[in-house]
């Protein structure tokens, strides 16, 4: 189910009268006048709700002699909500692009000619800078503290703070004087 369809369905279901209609239709298929009588609503109001329910895919209709009979589109209600939430959104790519742009902006601000000019105070920005420095370290390889310090020194003189922050952020794992870059 696409995001648009999910939104239309959920919006449509967020109405007591429409839920009552669906509950009635779960018992048996019905036509407008019968639903109107049952739910004490006018046929015009029932028709309005049924149009919305049909447009959202929650009900379907068929012609039987003079009547249009409505029934619940049960497959829609067998959908797993988690599947709907997990479905890849068209917005994901845009979100990633926005994140990438933000990341680049932070790097351009704090790195001048490859050196870190200052350690950002804001955690999100600091994390981006630390990840940039961590790119010089191979994942899962074990480094001596001295090696770590030297690699950080290429970027900033306060290697102790940066090293500590990298551990705090989970970028490095420390065991004694040995450091490993985490995935």
């Amino acid at each position: 189910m696409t995001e648009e369809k999910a939104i239309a369905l959920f919006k449509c279901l967020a109405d007591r009268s429409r839920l009552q209609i669906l509950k009635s239709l779960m018992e048996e298929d019905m036509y407008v006048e019968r639903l109107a009588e049952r739910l004490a609503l006018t046929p015009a109001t029932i028709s309005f709700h049924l149009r919305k329910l049909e447009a959202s895919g929650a009900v379907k209709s068929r012609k039987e002699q003079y009547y249009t009979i409505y029934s619940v589109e049960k497959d829609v209600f067998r959908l797993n909500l988690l599947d709907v939430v997990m479905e890849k959104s068209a917005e994901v790519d845009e979100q990633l692009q926005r994140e990438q742009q933000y990341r680049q902006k932070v790097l351009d601000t704090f790195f001048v000619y490859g050196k870190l000019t200052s350690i950002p105070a804001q955690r999100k920005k600091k994390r981006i800078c630390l990840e940039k420095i961590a790119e010089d370290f191979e994942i899962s390889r074990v480094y001596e503290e001295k090696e770590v310090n030297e690699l950080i020194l290429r970027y900033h003189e306060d290697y102790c703070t940066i090293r500590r922050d990298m551990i705090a952020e989970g970028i490095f794992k420390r065991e004694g004087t040995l450091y490993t870059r985490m995935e």
Partner: protein
Amino acid sequence: MFEQKLNEMLSQLLAEEKQLVQQNRKDEAAFVRIRSNIVNIGKTVWQVVVRTEKEENRREIYLGKMAALRMAWQESLSQAEKYEDHDKVMIETMKLSMLEQVLRMFEESAA
């Protein structure tokens, strides 16, 4: 007398709308709001007529103005029917029905 009746109707509609909102029946509440709007239009037109016209002319002028509204809405309804815009058909029908209700009230108040 007419205005008082309209105000009573407006209070009833307002209460109905509030109740529907509380019951999470927002579309139906919106329909009630549309009916309230028609009553409000009937009231405003009457207030203007009372303010600007001599007493002996008021009835005719008021009915004339309401007839003009009816004609515009009937035209709108015809268009909606022509293009099978079912939601609009419903709304225009509702407006016209409410307009007739206001006019009935007007005649009853005058009698």
